[in-house]
């Protein structure tokens, strides 16, 4: 397949995933901001940091919800805003139009200009509905790809982009909130931390799943295990790594050729396999998460190189 088309599919999936993740983060921000002491912790700034777009956000001062909604939902100058992501996903989809099914295209195309007509005040007022709308768009798109797209290499590039982006989002969320998990600083289980972690799990659609796996208790080890190492939870880092590896191995099969990205993903999977949450805390949660972000970034570059992107 054309390298450009592969690149379009890969980025289209990344943008869709990013739009959805950002929508989930906004929900998390709203939940956290109403907790006692939220002002002091500057919850909205941690939301901005979790999107990875902090660089283009004003560094100084207390962050207000209005600014965040504007920046993450509507701002076209922020390449990671939901509006930017949806527009970019569609532009990529348009360039790879021949690789999309009608349903996939319709999912991208339907209402893609909806956010154009909103100002911040309206958007804040209707935030829950807008967030639901974004999630529905992303899920419709994935469902259309899942049920209709040919399982050729194009599908693998699409899925690869999606899981890579998702791994990064989970890692960034852990990066922003890791201090809440540090056993030596605070005892987890206090109302506030409890609520913070349920909010994080909620943002990842994982609160119910967590209970199915670990029962009703929250411990730093279990939460870390769940978000980093659980192979059944589709937003955990390990699950995403497995999927990345699976997709890259399929691509290696299509082309009968391996490259640096294939070795890297194998290393990432096996490194994670050798860990348990105790080991993660001994090494440092922060360091482990930082390492994960560095490796996923590197993998992104290696994928682009292996398949002759741009």
């Amino acid at each position: 397949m054309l390298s450009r088309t592969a690149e379009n599919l890969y980025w289209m999936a990344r943008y869709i995933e990013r739009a959805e993740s950002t929508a989930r983060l906004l929900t998390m921000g709203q939940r956290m901001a109403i907790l006692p002491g939220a002002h002091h912790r500057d919850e909205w700034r941690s939301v901005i940091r979790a999107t990875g777009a902090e660089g283009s956000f004003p560094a100084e001062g207390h962050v207000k919800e209005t600014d965040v909604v504007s920046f993450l939902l509507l701002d076209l100058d922020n390449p990671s805003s939901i509006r930017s992501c949806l527009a970019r996903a569609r532009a990529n989809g348009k360039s790879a139009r021949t690789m999309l099914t009608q349903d996939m295209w319709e999912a991208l195309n339907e209402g893609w200009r909806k956010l154009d007509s909103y100002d911040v005040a309206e958007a804040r007022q209707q935030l829950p509905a807008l967030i639901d709308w974004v999630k529905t768009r992303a899920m419709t798109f994935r469902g259309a790809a899942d049920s209709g797209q040919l399982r050729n290499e194009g599908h693998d590039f699409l899925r690869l982009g999606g899981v890579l982006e998702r791994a990064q989002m989970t890692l960034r969320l852990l990066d922003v909130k890791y201090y809440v998990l540090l056993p030596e600083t605070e005892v987890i289980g206090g109302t506030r931390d409890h609520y913070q972690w349920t909010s994080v799990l909620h943002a990842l659609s994982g609160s119910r799943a967590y209970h199915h796996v670990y029962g009703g208790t929250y411990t730093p080890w279990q939460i870390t295990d769940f978000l980093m190492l659980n192979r059944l939870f589709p937003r955990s880092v390990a699950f995403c790594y497995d999927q990345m590896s699976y997709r890259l191995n399929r691509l290696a099969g299509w082309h009968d050729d391996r490259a640096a990205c294939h070795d890297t993903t194998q290393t990432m999977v096996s490194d994670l396999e050798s860990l348990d949450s105790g080991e993660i805390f001994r090494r440092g949660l922060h360091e482990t998460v930082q390492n994960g972000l560095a490796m996923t970034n590197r993998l992104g570059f290696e994928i682009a190189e292996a398949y002759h992107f741009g």
Partner: protein
Amino acid sequence: MLDQQGDVRSCYAEVQNWVERTGIAGLNRRLEEAEAIFRRIGITFAVYGEGGDPERLIPFDLLPRIFTAQEWRTLDRGIRQRARALNAFLHDVYHRGEIVKAGVMPGDIIYQNSAYKPEMADFTPPGKVYSHIVGIDIVRTGPASFEVLEDNCRTPSGVSYMLENREIMTRMFPELFSQGLVQPVDDYPAELLKSLKEVAPPACKGDPVVVVLTPGSLNSAYYEHSFLADLMGVELVEPADLFVDENRVWMKTTSGPKAVDVIYRRIDDDYIDPLAFRPDSLLGVPGIFNVYRNGGVTLCSAPGAGIADDKAVYVYVPEMIRFYLGEEPILSNIKTWQCSKPDECAYVLENLHELVAKEVHGSGGYGMLIGPKATKEEVAAYAERIRANPSEFIAQPTLDLSTVPTLGPASIVQRHADFRPYCLVGRELRLVPGGLTRVALTEGSLVVNSSQGGGVKDTWVMQD
């Protein structure tokens, strides 16, 4: 709902029943549904330089335009005849120029024309085909008479509307098609692919690799480019996806370079190769023209094919048919005055308020004057332009064009329409029974271009 068109009347009877059953309000509701479908699918077009919505919908009219099988037989023969003559003309002007030597056509309107590409001289493309898709714009001027408005030999657009209009109509009104009275058009993409494969270059071994070359997703016809690539099952490439090496053209794929044999290009001559044509083009594929001339790839259409659809050359198409084919033209031209000829220019300047004047190299309905609709000042200004540069203009009578029934907000109205069939030229000629009917949606308007407020409708060729 009908005018003078004799036996078309019976064909419209079924449609008429359907209109009565559904009612005008009902039809307008269905029209909204159709437009929602078009927008969701993403069939939109962009108009350059007009601002506004870059992805607006082309207006769609629900009432089909109908040709009888008998009418189609005439059109079919006439269209094929014209496509053959135009390709013969292209071969001639890039070789011996017999038509000029014989005194049938003046040489300067060919060789002084910017659409003429001297780089093509003495080169014969595979199958001697220059224009692989000939779109001929036709108007009905009477119950049994059709005349040609203009030819499109480069890359005529609009065929996606022919296919999509039919798709929408069958989706919304299956009962109209259930009796099998309308001839199908849906094998067009397969026929196009066949035609393109037939002109594979000498360097091609095995099954030819065909691609559609688009300037990119911002182009106004991008939807059509992707649509055709999709239906043919071939790659849709942009210039940056291609490169030249060892007298072949390659596309960059995820498993390395892959050779390309036939390029259905939707990029103008001037932009296709900065080494051969415009050096400032950022779009093209450097060196591609040289590979073409050396038999490493086939470009469809051939660079320089546009000389055959130039408006100054158009006047001579009936002569071409006689000259190359030894046949009488089946479809006639619209009466055309050439301002390059002093006596005809004088007539045009005197009668400009009654004529349609056009720039010789213009297209898309831009830069034309419709005398009867123009103000005195506009006519005077246009006359100045003609006087300054007479050879750049032609003029035609404002035709007594026949009209077709069209859905208005409150009733069925009559609107002017033209018709563009697409003749495919490979080793043989192919023509699907249908084409694009464009309709001027403004009352009395003669301009059907989508860029100027025209709409489209489905075109039915009936079975015998």
